């Protein structure tokens, strides 16, 4: 069989399995849906801002949390249930298995974000200035955050709660650093510098450009950085998973 076709089928199968099995797991629903929703409500309540001003923050939080919530659950859970060994005895390369986990997170994050975009358009009359800019913000952002979720799950444990806790220790500070709740321009100098090391910063800046036609960073630079973060985090996830694999078996 053509190797490309074989790998495509394997990748699609792993992604499908993750979607079918893990999207409805309580930790994924709690940290991927409810948590960003209520976090956003806490931020927006009584603020007096219009839907168009709030949309980039809401989209940014949703994309960040939903995209990175699937990955932390999969590998520890599959270690515990021994389904990881089943995957490892299949002829699929290990990196493909991790990529399938990332794709599941990517689809989850993207689908929920597009749902919000659609709902915002039909119910609140908020429409993106440019579909292209919207996609350039959402696509690499979703992939990047899904890879981040997978990177967390390289922690060699069979307890998803441990990985979820670690992921929240990292994700929550990033929310406050990345221009979601406070525009980058209003952040103190030190924090503004730190914000450059958060992948969420670039996604939110591109979303600001999409909905408010304003951006703190150069859009091309923001897109480039978003893509670079995606590749770096994905490479990190693959490397760390390979290293931690032997300790989890």
């Amino acid at each position, binding site marked *: *069989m053509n190797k490309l*076709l*074989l790998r495509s*089928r*394997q990748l*699609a*199968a*792993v992604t*499908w*399995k993750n979607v*079918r*099995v893990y999207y*409805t797991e309580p930790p994924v629903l709690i940290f991927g849906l409810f948590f960003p929703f209520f976090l956003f409500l806490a931020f927006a309540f009584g603020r007096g801002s219009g839907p168009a001003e709030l949309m980039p923050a809401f989209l940014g939080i949703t994309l960040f949390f939903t995209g990175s919530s699937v990955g932390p659950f999969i590998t520890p859970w599959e270690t515990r*249930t*021994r*389904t990881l*060994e*089943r*995957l*490892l*005895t*299949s*002829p*699929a*390369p290990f990196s493909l298995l991790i990529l399938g986990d990332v794709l599941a997170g990517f689809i989850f994050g993207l689908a929920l974000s597009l749902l919000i975009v659609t709902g915002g358009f039909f119910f609140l009359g908020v429409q993106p200035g440019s579909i292209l800019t919207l996609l350039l913000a959402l696509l690499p952002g979703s992939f990047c955050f899904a890879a981040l979720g997978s990177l967390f799950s390289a922690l060699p444990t069979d307890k998803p709660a441990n990985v979820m806790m670690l992921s929240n220790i990292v994700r929550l500070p990033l929310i406050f650093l990345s221009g979601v709740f406070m525009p980058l321009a209003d952040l103190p100098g030190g924090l503004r510098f730190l914000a450059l090391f958060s992948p969420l910063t670039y996604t939110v800046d591109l979303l600001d450009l999409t909905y408010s036609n304003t951006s703190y960073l150069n859009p091309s630079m923001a897109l480039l950085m978003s893509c670079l973060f995606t590749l770096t985090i994905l490479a990190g996830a693959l490397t760390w998973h390979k290293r931690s694999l*032997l300790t989890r*078996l």
Partner: protein
Amino acid sequence: MNSEQAIEVTDLKKYYDDFPAVNGISFSVERGDFFGFLGPNGAGKTTTVRVLTGILPPTAGEARVMGYDIEKSAPAAKEQLGVVPETVNTYPDLTPRENLWFSGRMYGMDSAKIEQRSSDLLQEFGLGDVEDVKTKEFSKGMRQRVALCGALLHEPQLLFLDEPTSGLDVQSARLIRTIISELNETGVTIYLMTHNIEEANRLCDRVAVINNGRIAAIDSPENLRADIQSTRSVEVVFAEAEDSPVPVDDLKGLPEVEKVEGTGKKFRIFSGSLDPLIKALSDYAAKHEREIVSLNTLDPSLEDAFVRLTGDSTAVRKGTDE
């Protein structure tokens, strides 16, 4: 790739830090063999199979599966084999049909072929009526059957089975034994890891016994038993005595006795020479006014060979599911 051997292992070593889980083993399994792999807990069975199935890399040595080096040509080797682990590893939130679809796609099968094979296998394994029920609703025996269907879906030439009947109900265990025997008759090589000596004795053409990370013996069950033929035994049952049971030390003191197992009224006495032992037992019973209810001479079993080779009488259990 053509090779007469389904498995060729040469000086294979697998260390966990400094601990040698597998310490330089070499053996081969011919295509079409029904091969048993026995050993006490911690002997290195699971580690060996994890290396042979490409889950773990070896520390040193070489393992070839269906002619492919499992380390250098892992995907090609893995396409040829199916694996059923002891811990059932189906996805509980998927139905049998979905579990099989996933397995089939991982081996690159097209949908029509998966559908056809799935239907055939689920029927054969008695799961046709529950093919659309999530496997988390199933008993262990049913989930094990789903796992076996998944391992067979892509028609592997070599099947690894790790305690496939452990903890199963009688019907499931029998069905699985029957099906793997039939598979073997069609030319599929079976590699069976088991604690169940009786199962290995009944099914396997050849058996390897691993102990402390090394192969202690490898031969047919008959030859392994014959190797310890010099040690035969007598099973003797004394009548119930009101005052006291028969002291084991009395029996150990009889001529030609090598070992005594049992307490109370039933004993198994091992000896290199049975005739003097039987006479001594008869004399002992007469002298102590004990009645012998039954006395049988026993040939060595594969279990005896296993215990002799591993020195671990606690590691074996006889088949209890029938």
